């Protein structure tokens, strides 16, 4: 794969405990078919490289302004970067003496990725941990993820996938499923219209993919629902999800506390915090 055909990875986290059993390394791929308004990883939405600017880390030295070949860094702008001009060439992030300007997304050739993931193998082995592919949506890049998963499996590494369920099932079935030990499957909103309203896409495929996988595959599936105040945490939504899963023979699902950490990152990559007026004003319900 040539570099321009590679997907971007916006983070590789080592030693994570919350993304599956044991000590894990989690790969975050950049790009997502959904655009949930509460997304706490807003930098995962676009599949394109972006430049993040963190105001509180900026020492106002002006190195970026001089460095930018496009004239896209404007000290008068609160967001610092004129996103219409920025080509994400990373000249400014190189010049920045602090980490106020940071590139979001990096290309990792498959071999390099595999090497990085296998370096942590002893951590997986001693803790019954493994690797988790997350995002964004990893299934957008099955041809990239597949060789990595294959190589990990060959080295007896436990593999987990975090997915929104928006994938082409036949392709998923042949390319990734054989390597996966555990799927964290997001079920956000059961009602199709609300799902579309808050995530931008219809949930028909998500539900049907889960139904089929649950029936025909032995892979462990843990459905997950983020508890977003007044959007996903309503009693009717949770009840509907529970009923749906029961029918599929899946006994339980995980509810995740809503993480509002996305705001800072959203601002950093120049996206406005765009919410429906009544959605987030209420405090997080327990």
């Amino acid at each position: 794969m040539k570099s321009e055909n590679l997907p971007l990875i916006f983070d590789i986290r080592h030693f994570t405990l919350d993304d599956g059993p044991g000590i894990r390394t989690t790969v975050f791929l950049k790009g997502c078919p959904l655009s949930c308004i509460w997304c706490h990883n807003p930098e995962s939405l676009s599949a394109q490289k972006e430049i993040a600017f963190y105001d509180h880390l900026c020492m106002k030295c002006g190195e970026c302004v001089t460095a930018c070949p496009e004239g896209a860094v404007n000290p008068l702008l609160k967001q610092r970067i004129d996103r219409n001009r920025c080509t994400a060439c990373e000249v400014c992030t190189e010049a920045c003496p602090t980490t106020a300007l940071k590139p979001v997304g990096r290309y990792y050739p498959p071999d390099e990725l595999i090497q990085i993931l296998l370096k942590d193998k002893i951590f997986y082995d001693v803790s019954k941990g493994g690797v988790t592919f997350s995002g964004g949506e990893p299934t957008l890049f099955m041809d990239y993820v597949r060789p990595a998963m294959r190589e990990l499996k060959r080295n007896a590494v436990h593999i987990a996938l975090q997915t929104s369920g928006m994938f082409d099932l036949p392709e998923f079935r042949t390319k990734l499923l054989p390597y996966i030990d555990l799927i964290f499957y997001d079920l956000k909103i059961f009602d199709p219209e609300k799902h579309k309203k808050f995530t931008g896409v219809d949930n028909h495929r998500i539900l049907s993919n889960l139904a089929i996988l649950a029936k025909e595959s032995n892979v462990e599936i843990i459905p997950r629902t983020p508890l977003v105040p007044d959007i996903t945490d309503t009693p009717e939504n949770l009840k509907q999800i529970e009923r749906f899963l029961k029918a599929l023979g899946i006994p339980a699902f995980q509810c995740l506390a809503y993480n509002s950490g996305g705001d800072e990152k959203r601002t950093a990559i120049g996206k406005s915090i765009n919410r429906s007026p009544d959605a987030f004003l209420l405090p997080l319900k327990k």
Partner: protein
Amino acid sequence: MSARDLSIPAITLKDIRLGDYTLNTLPLLGRLKENLLREKSSVCIERARYVTEYLKNTPDQESPETRYASAVHFFLSHKKPLFFDDNLLAGTTCAKPFGAPVYPELTGMTIWPELDTISTREKNPILLSDEDAATLNFEIFPYWMERNILETTRKKHGNPKCMQLFERIVFFIASKAGCISHTVPDYSTVLSKGIESIIRTAAEEEKRPATRKLPELDQQIAFYRAVRIAMEGVIAYAGNLRKEALRLSENEMNPEKKENLRKMAQVLEQVPAKPARTFREAVNAVWLIQIAIHAENINMAISPGRLDQVLYPYYRQDMENGRLRLEEAMELVGCLWLKLNDNTNLVPETAEELFGGAGTVPAVTVGGVDEQGSDAVNDLTYIMLRVTELLKTRDPSLNARYHYEKNTASYRNRVAEVITGTRSAPAFLNDVAIVKTLEGQGVSTAHARDYAIIGCVEPGVPGKSYDASSSIMLNLVSAVELALNNGKRPVTGDEQIGPVSGDPASFKRFEDFWGAFTTQLTWLMTEAVALNNLFGATYREIMPSPLLSAFFDMEGPMKKGQDLIFGGAHYNSSGATHIGFADTVDSLNAIEKAVFVDKKVAFPELLSALADNFRGHETLHAWLLHKTPKFGTDDPVAAKNARNLIEFLHHFYQGRTNYRGGRYKAGFWTMTNHAGQGKMSGALPNGRKAYEVFASGITPVSQAAGDLARCFRAIAELPGQCIANGEAVNFKYPSIMNEQEIETMAAAVEAYFRYGGRHVQFNIMSYEDLIQAREHPEQYPDLLVRVSGYSAYFKDLNDAMKEEIITRTAYDVKTGKAVPFPEKHKTMLPFE
């Protein structure tokens, strides 16, 4: 006692946690611990007085060995038999319940200027009575003015250059002026044979007809005679203790106390003169020998070693015979732990800045494998872990060996649990890696498997290796500064101190700077080694160790007829340790990247930024701080410079021979010197500001390594074979909440060891906890922290050291990420 009978399981405990045993069910330990925390330290002049009195009145006609042994004998046989509390073990280090003994042969006289004020000084006062102050001033110190190790050496060699350099303090510390100590004696032999048997052996050897050359023979005879004299002193002290115990028991009305005194007298009738027969006798014998060793050697890192192995035969036999109950065994171990806390160091106010808060670091090592390579964990291992967890005392410094192929996961997890409970101890040690390192030093496999920790982190073989592991403490940063300034150091002004190594502005490649740096380093190490060898020679003349020699392996000094200080041990070495490792590596990285790879800055500008402590160079400072490679990440430049530095030091030292014919070894642990030396060093290319602390041990710079897994790997991948004198890796978790997190922590340690890591120790405390403890010391009287190889009460540490511990990177055990340092305390960070 025979070796372990394999038919009997080593673990008979139903619950390895011993959760049913607490300070409530063991009230004696609870009471004794409260006493200990209440007790204020006092200067104890008893030993100094008797040793001085003897030497004053005895002209120099004998051999140094017999002369010194006689002085020690004189002291031991006059030493007051004292019973301060209800401890089950007889014997005290000092004539004070919590004593700081004076060793005028070494650095005891540094408190002379303070005799009037030491009781009331601000930092760690030590009580001294007017009478004792007068005795020191008029009788003891005057005798030693020309005679202590430092001045004897100075006079003999005409105040040599290496000594003057040492006295600048900021380049290296030649610890021998203050101690050799730092060793693990052999307790097993003396427990199983008794001191009388050592005396008999010495007497026979002394009389053996001459078959060897004369001068050598004279020395051997003198050595055996000295051993006999010293051993008789130990027996005399035990005899006096027994008489006193009997006397007290006769007068005692309280039946429990009466019975305890009576039992102690019984124990003393047997040990240490004759072989120990019971667990209680064995434990008390260990304690008496510890006291005896301190009659001769300063109370610094005389380490009891593998007590779970040494005492196990006695424990097992008593348990099988039904003579001992579990709680009694725990009480006895607890009593020994508390006894090991009955003395402290005598530290002058000035040295508080460098060493403040250190205990006497008697290291105990548990777990791991035995000489055959099998799992050595036994009931006593778990008893010692539980007692440590319950008592949370500063000493003994506990070390848990862990062999990831031989020891069980439940042992591994239990050690992690104890760390969580005490929030700081024990340290974890990797058997696989350390055995290999020792083998690399020529130690046989069986001996290497029996290793125990000396003092902080240095591996030694009990009773077989005499390692003097704390001989040299060298400030690596001083070599960086000398190289940057062509042989001068900003803190010492315009004086040309080191060799001329070239104007950095003329350097074309990073290798040129590396060359200048290693030129300075080589010069410093050469001076430090030279001075250590001079000091070693002085010890031979005035302060040999026949008593300690007798508690070494019978194949060593007792067979060779040679004192330890003359090379009598089976294995000999001298240890150097290095201060400012991570700051040095990161400074090398910064120079390589900023000056030579990215050409971001030229030397003249970098030097002026350093001279200005980065004032007016904020952009450059930020760039150096954030954009240059850091040790503790997976950056290949950082890994290369770290490796090269360690290998360079190792190869230098291995090529140097000490006064006992052993090799020098390199280590990386810093006690509190990284704080003290940091306070005396200028700004560095890695962005550390002037007069701020350095990172501790071999630990990455605070906040520089944001990712725990990569940090572990970076340290693990260092060339462990080249770190023969041990290393301290200090980590911090803000909290460990539950069993799952304990298991994760334990698993992470195992992974780190499987990658090659050798040592790690933790503080389970958040930034906020520690800041709180600094602001309200009265609320945290017994908060123990792991410094850099030993534990200390946080309140006793000097300010710089407190700051260093507070700013050490804390990692969230759930995410493996560094927890951001609290914004409002940022100025505490060494680069802010």
